[in-house]
């Protein structure tokens, strides 16, 4: 049996009804018709698909197709496994930024001295403790994407500020590694496993019972993929949105004005469709006095992807998707599009710079930190 035929069986892709819902839903297919999830499956079922097919790297793995699929086919997972096979025989996608980010991921699998904590300033952290704040790739992004003012590190500083305001002094470690999300979706399972192992050992040595994430990719990877490869975790991955919602309910922190602002919210795919967190960010926005939330036509389950994922195949198609999304945001009458993912931030800010668009792009945690009520 060929590798692809094998995949069809393990993922039950043979249930495909050939109905076209996936391709009709796909943000890539609408811009780049050569890519069609339905046709990839069709070719696979007829044994016509090749691992060298370059379109398999165009998938954003955003799950817009799979949440709508009437046959319950997990197309992103099918693509991920296919990429794994393709990578194994020497085919890869086109890395963005000349592969710089993939190299940084590789370096982190080694015993390296990192400089991950330069940003902490007056934030309070600990060496060991119950709560671990998994910062993710923000310190690296901060350096790489300074030219587009990505504000990645401000996000980390603000998350720490929020945690401190809630009375939590988390463990933040210089030895944290990339969570492996991108390696996994780039088809490089080996690299993913090396990174994940290092992270698990690190968290275990910190004694943490709870690991807090502000990055939806890290949360999704820890929650859903780490147990698949390494068994049950001995800590609980917690998304900061859930954590924040509790603290706001308990009245531990309060949010205040000033100023009226109309905003719209972009659901990151890992946060919304893959983690099912839709209401928490909206509740927080509602809690902030003076903030009015205007929804885009494509929101929540129907939220469109930010255009590229896994630092791969960033193309004119990505830019078109981003441009349309930012226009959609502007059409609601909102002056600011709020996201809750460092990569959505980078992608949108890049498109804003490229097309010179008149819309602000803000991270939800930056907004919350800015509106924290101080006694």
């Amino acid at each position, binding site marked *: 049996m060929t590798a692809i035929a094998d995949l069809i069986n393990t993922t039950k892709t043979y249930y495909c009804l050939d109905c*076209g819902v996936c391709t009709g*839903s796909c943000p890539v297919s609408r811009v780049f018709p050569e890519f069609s999830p339905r046709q990839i499956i069709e070719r696979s079922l007829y044994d016509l698909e090749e691992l060298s097919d370059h379109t398999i790297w165009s998938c954003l793995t955003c799950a817009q197709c799979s949440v709508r699929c009437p046959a*319950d086919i997990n197309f992103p997972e099918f693509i991920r496994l296919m990429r794994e096979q393709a990578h194994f025989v020497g085919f890869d996608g086109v890395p963005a930024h000349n592969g710089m980010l993939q190299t940084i991921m590789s370096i982190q699998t080694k015993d390296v001295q990192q400089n991950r904590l330069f940003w902490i300033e007056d934030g309070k952290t600990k060496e060991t403790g119950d709560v671990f704040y998994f910062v993710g790739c923000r310190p690296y992004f901060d350096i790489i994407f300074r030219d587009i003012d990505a504000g990645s590190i401000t996000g980390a500083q603000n998350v720490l500020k929020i945690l401190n305001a809630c009375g939590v002094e988390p463990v933040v470690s210089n030895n944290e590694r990339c969570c492996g999300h991108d390696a996994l979706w780039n088809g490089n399972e080996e690299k993913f496993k090396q990174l994940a192992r290092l992270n698990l050992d690190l968290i275990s040595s910190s004694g943490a019972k709870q690991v807090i994430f502000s990055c939806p990719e890290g949360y999704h990877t820890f929650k859903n993929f780490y147990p698949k490869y390494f068994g049950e975790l001995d800590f609980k991955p917690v998304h900061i949105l859930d954590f924040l919602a509790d603290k706001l309910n308990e009245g531990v922190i309060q949010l205040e004005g000033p100023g009226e602002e109309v905003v719209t919210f972009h659901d990151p795919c890992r946060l919304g469709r893959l983690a099912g967190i839709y209401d928490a960010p909206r509740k927080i926005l509602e809690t902030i006095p003076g903030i009015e939330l205007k929804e885009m036509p494509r929101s929540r389950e129907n939220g469109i992807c930010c255009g590229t994922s896994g630092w791969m195949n960033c193309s004119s198609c990505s830019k078109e998707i981003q441009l349309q999304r930012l226009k959609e945001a502007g059409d609601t009458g909102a002056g600011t599009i709020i996201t809750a993912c460092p990569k959505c931030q980078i992608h949108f800010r890049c498109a804003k710079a490229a097309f010179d668009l008149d819309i602000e792009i803000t991270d939800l945690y930056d907004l919350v930190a800015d509106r924290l009520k101080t006694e």
Partner: protein
Amino acid sequence: MLDVGRHSNIALLAYSEVEKVDGQAGNFKVTVRRKRRYVDEDKCTGCGACAEKCPTMVPDAFNEGLGSRSAIYSYFAQGIPSTHTIDPDFCRQLKGKKCGICEKVCQADAINFDQEDKIMELSVGAIIIAVGYDVFDPSQIPEYRYREIQNVVTAIEFERLLSASGPTEGHLDRPSDRAVEAEIAGFEKNLKKSERTLEKLEKKYDEASAQFYDKYQQGQYQDDEDRKKWADRYAAYLTITKSLDDLKNKAESFTVAKRLAFIQCVGSRDFRFYPFCSGYCCMHSIKEAIIAHEHEPETTSTIFGMDIRAVSKGFEEYKIRGGNHSNITYVRGRVSEIMGGPGNNPVVIYEDTQKRQVESQEFDMVILATACAPTKGIVELAKIFGVELDEYNFIRTSPLSPVDTTIPGIFVCGCAESPMDVPESVAQASSAAERAAEIAFQPNL
């Protein structure tokens, strides 16, 4: 239906619920709650005078909420028994307010606000469950935006819009346009009120409002409280006229819906909801498209689906006839998404899998061919009767005894058992009646 109502051997206990079932085949004791109608069924002649005079209007459930009925009502005109019922959730009298108009107008003296539920016990030999089904609620599919886009309707809603006895008398007025018409009616009511008030004031001061208002705006009468009120009223009148004119201008361009999209398999053949094929929806979409075309020959319809399951004698021919004579286009492709478009026109996004192209197309109205879902109370009902349900919550039968439930002496027919069309339901009903008779007429019982 009328035959059942008239039959001397059939006692019809409508508006009633089974609360308990004891015994076994040949000898069941069934406890039935006859819910109070607040109307004496034996006295009511069904003349409808009460419903005509009733001041409280509520959404009409029979018309899927598209029209309204009064708080005292008969579910639909041809229903049996031909009697009326008071809706206790809305009736002013029952809500403790002053009313009782229906009682005054009823010549048969049938209204009884003090009526109580009656519990009765029946001894029966066999039971047939024929509780039907519910329409799948498409708001569970977020990408179809059923609640957000007014002109996306279910097939049953569309059926009522097409019906000569429905809320639009068979004209395909779009829900968004009807909402505007309702708004206009509201404004017109306010306008009349406003005009009456102004008239009184004009009489009092013997001056036309417009003339007075000019003077007022130029600075006259500023200290006169009464005239100040007049000015406010007139300003309000002007706003109403303006809004009314705008809406009326908008309404001038309204026409009946002429470009229709039918979306098949909404909730069925879908692992997220019901994996089975509901069986009848392909045919009812074709039928609705043909009737819409009969009403208005300019109507074009597009039916989107994975395949058209026209399986039975003459069905395929009907489908082809729809294509040849009723402007129906069949597109192979399941719809991915419905978005709101300009002019309240829904935009359908899909892949035409034969052309291998993603397309988007604007329609006047989109009709969802919703799945056949088990009726809401069926789990409760199954407990009361002791019968088993299948994995979808339809009543379980076996292929070789398709109307026998898991309890001897209790039978099932129609969509309580599985999705089926009218002829099949009729055949099953006859079969279930025959099976019941076999038990009820055993000589040794």
